[in-house]
């Protein structure tokens, strides 16, 4: 009696399996070459040393991580087939997949995991020290079991084990050598579905199918070629002509995406960026007038017309941001829009009133204050964005002079010298707020000389406390509650203006299927991608 439903389910499942198998096998064809436009050309293939964006688009085809993630940002099996987190959150046991081999034929074992985390990622990866800071020891009771011992619970660590964030490296090739100067930096040997073949600088990188890949039958593509074309118009033309099949992360300018998306053979999607979650901002220096005053900061926040920026600078790709945490974190419950809103129709009016209250009266020429606004030196959209901000500030009587410098000078000005008043910026929320968000608001993250941390100089003891609690809170509901309160406090304090959640768009040729299958998007391994031609 009790067993009957289970049996029925099993039979059904088997039947469905039998019925579906030939169909899926028929749909996923073997063969084909995928040409991806990667912009700019990566400086290196050593994804364990540098997190520079384009590296992730190529190195992830070779190196894999312990985990992959689904669109709900839940971990799913990668090189680890299963895992168990101890009740106290301080012990995490991973069981590794069997039969995984590196591209040189040597087996992938628990020793490689231990080496990668403790000897490479924690030492040389830019975010590795933060990700694995609570790891006290890694035990390897057998070849396929890895046990992470933590000092305090670290829920965010489970979000940072993808092949992009924490690649697993071959111990036998790196051990005993200087990891930072390894000869395998630019001829990577990993476990991934594609093997690195060659890199013609300034032109392309080639990756060929790994026939011994541990997921039997995959990958479906024969080859992936990453092409580097410096001129944006030429990139668009290459996609249009079918010479290249895919481009993401602004490889295709936002202004061209709409044109391409109208053509029947192309698909444009904003999926696959759920673990980067960039927010376009205006950062105040809260140490200096006029933005040492909360009211003048809030006035600027009110003055920015989010819709105009999204529609005219980013051509409709984006949505108004409400606070420090991107709405991409909604599936985890971390996001809330129940905060003070600066995106209101009568923003200019409120802004003028706030500035009056702040004691910044208009002079005879209508100017209340003169400031310098630093542009983000990342290209055209960013210049337009700066020009818009200048005009928006003019409406509330703040006369802004634009300053455009090269990237190193700008970074030094913002993050070392704190010699600025207001700067455009954009920061990624990454896989977990602990890694991507805390760095901008925590008092301990005011670290002169370190880039992309708290340069506004704003902090609040209460917000710090909430972040500290959320860092070690293993209960997702409690963690979510902490973040909701955190967002309220930070939005009230207005250390920066959250303008909009930047949406990158991936344009690809519909001939290819299953390209974007996870929140990692272009940072995934493409083992399921196939060509339907």
């Amino acid at each position, binding site marked *: 009696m009790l067993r009957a439903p289970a049996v029925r389910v099993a039979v059904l499942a088997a039947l469905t399996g039998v019925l579906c198998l030939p169909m899926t096998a028929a749909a996923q064809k073997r063969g084909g070459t995928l040409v991806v436009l990667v912009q700019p050309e990566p400086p290196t293939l050593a994804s364990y040393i540098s997190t520079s964006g384009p590296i992730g688009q190529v190195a992830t085809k070779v190196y894999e991580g312990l985990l992959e993630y689904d669109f709900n940002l839940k971990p799913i099996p990668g090189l680890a087939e299963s895992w168990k987190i101890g009740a106290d959150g301080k012990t995490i046991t991973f069981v590794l997949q069997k039969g995984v081999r590196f591209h040189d034929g040597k087996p992938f074992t628990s020793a490689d995991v231990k080496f990668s985390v403790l000897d490479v990622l924690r030492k040389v990866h830019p975010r590795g020290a933060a990700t694995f800071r609570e790891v006290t020891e890694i035990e390897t009771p057998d070849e396929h079991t890895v046990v992470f011992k933590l000092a305090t619970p670290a829920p965010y660590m489970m979000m940072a084990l993808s092949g992009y964030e924490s690649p697993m490296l071959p111990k036998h090739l790196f051990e005993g050598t200087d990891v930072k100067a390894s000869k395998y930096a630019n001829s990577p040997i990993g476990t991934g579905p594609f093997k690195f073949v060659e890199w013609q600088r300034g032109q392309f990188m080639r990756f060929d199918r790994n026939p011994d890949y541990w997921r039997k039958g995959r990958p479906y593509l024969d080859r992936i070629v990453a092409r580097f074309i410096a001129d944006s118009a030429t990139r668009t033309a290459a996609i249009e002509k079918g010479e290249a099949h895919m481009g993401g992360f602004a490889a295709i300018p936002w202004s061209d995406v709409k044109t391409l998306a109208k053509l029947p053979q192309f698909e444009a999607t904003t999926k696959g960026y759920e673990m980067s979650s960039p927010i376009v901002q205006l950062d105040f220096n809260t140490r200096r007038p006029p933005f040492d005053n909360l009211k003048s900061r809030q006035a600027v926040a009110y003055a920015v017309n989010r819709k105009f920026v999204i529609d*005219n600078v980013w051509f409709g790709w984006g949505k108004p941001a409400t606070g420090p945490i991107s709405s991409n974190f909604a599936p985890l419950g971390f996001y809330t829009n129940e905060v003070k809103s600066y995106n209101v129709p009568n923003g200019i009016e409120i802004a003028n009133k706030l500035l009056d209250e702040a004691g910044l009266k208009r002079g005879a020429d209508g100017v209340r204050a003169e400031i310098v606004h630093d542009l983000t030196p990342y290209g055209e959209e960013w210049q337009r964005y700066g020009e818009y901000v200048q*005009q928006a500030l003019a409406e509330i009587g703040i006369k802004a002079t634009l300053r455009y*410098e090269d990237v190193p000078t700008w970074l030094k000005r913002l993050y070392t010298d704190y010699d600025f008043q207001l700067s455009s910026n954009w920061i990624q929320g990454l896989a977990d707020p602990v890694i991507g968000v805390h760095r901008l608001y925590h008092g301990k993250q005011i670290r002169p000389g370190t880039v992309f941390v708290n340069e506004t100089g704003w902090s609040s003891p209460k917000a710090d406390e909430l972040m500290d609690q959320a860092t070690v809170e293993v209960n997702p509901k409690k963690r979510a509650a902490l973040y909701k309160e955190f967002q309220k406090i930070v939005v009230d304090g207005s250390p920066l203006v959250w303008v909009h959640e930047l949406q990158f768009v991936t344009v690809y040729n519909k001939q290819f299927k299953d390209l974007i299958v996870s929140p990692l998007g272009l940072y995934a391994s493409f083992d399921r991608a196939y060509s339907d031609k």
Partner: protein
Amino acid sequence: MPGFWRRLLGNRSAIIGLVILAVVVVVAASAPVLFPGSPFRRVDRPFQPPFGAHLFGTDVLGRNVAAGIAHGARTSLMIGILATTVAVLVGTVIGAAAGYYGGRLDDLLMRTTEFFQTIPTFLFAIILVAILAPSIRSIVIAIAVVSWPAVARLVRGEFLALRHREFVHACICLGMSDRRVIFRHVLPNCLSPIIVTGSLTVATAILIESALSFLGLGDPNVMSWGFMIGAGRTFLRTAWWLCTIPGMAILLTVLAINLLGEGLNDTLNPRLRNS
């Protein structure tokens, strides 16, 4: 001087150049009256085509293209004239000293000049602007730095030729100071080639400024034609007027200056004067 004007106005290319240039100057001078306020101000919905509500339409952020053209004319002319003035002054002083005194000083100055000439002009200008941070001042400096060597070589050549002429020897025998000989007697005699080169340098300076702005190295607070082209380039296929109109403005201005320069050359060159 009346003879000079008569000859100049008798030259067809000079007249065409002068007329176009006069229009540009009038537009530039009246920009604050015709289009008051900042040319970066939003006036309408973005991408309004030309010859509608706005003479030349609006751009990606809804800015008036005609206002940009008028204010951009000021920038182009100002930079062209300022940079050329600096380049001609520096080039003349160095060329005159080298040509007049000769010897070691000549060697030193000319090797220095050649050092500057070996660096590709435009790349050099880009590097200078990048180092100095983009602003009107750094652009003027960059254009002057890459433009003076040509003037210096020219002036030196003229001075070398005039230095041993009898009237110069006579001046020296009369006990005139070097300064007086140089400025009162030699320099006036090589003024015409300097004027011709100078006028062409203005055209080059305008082109360099446009190219720098096109590459995003212009002063972000100042409207310029090159900036308009650079910002409109992305929309060449959807909004042709954003690049075409400022492009025409540059073409006409540079052409006018070149025509005028040629006319000046014909007028001032004694060998062509009688033909």
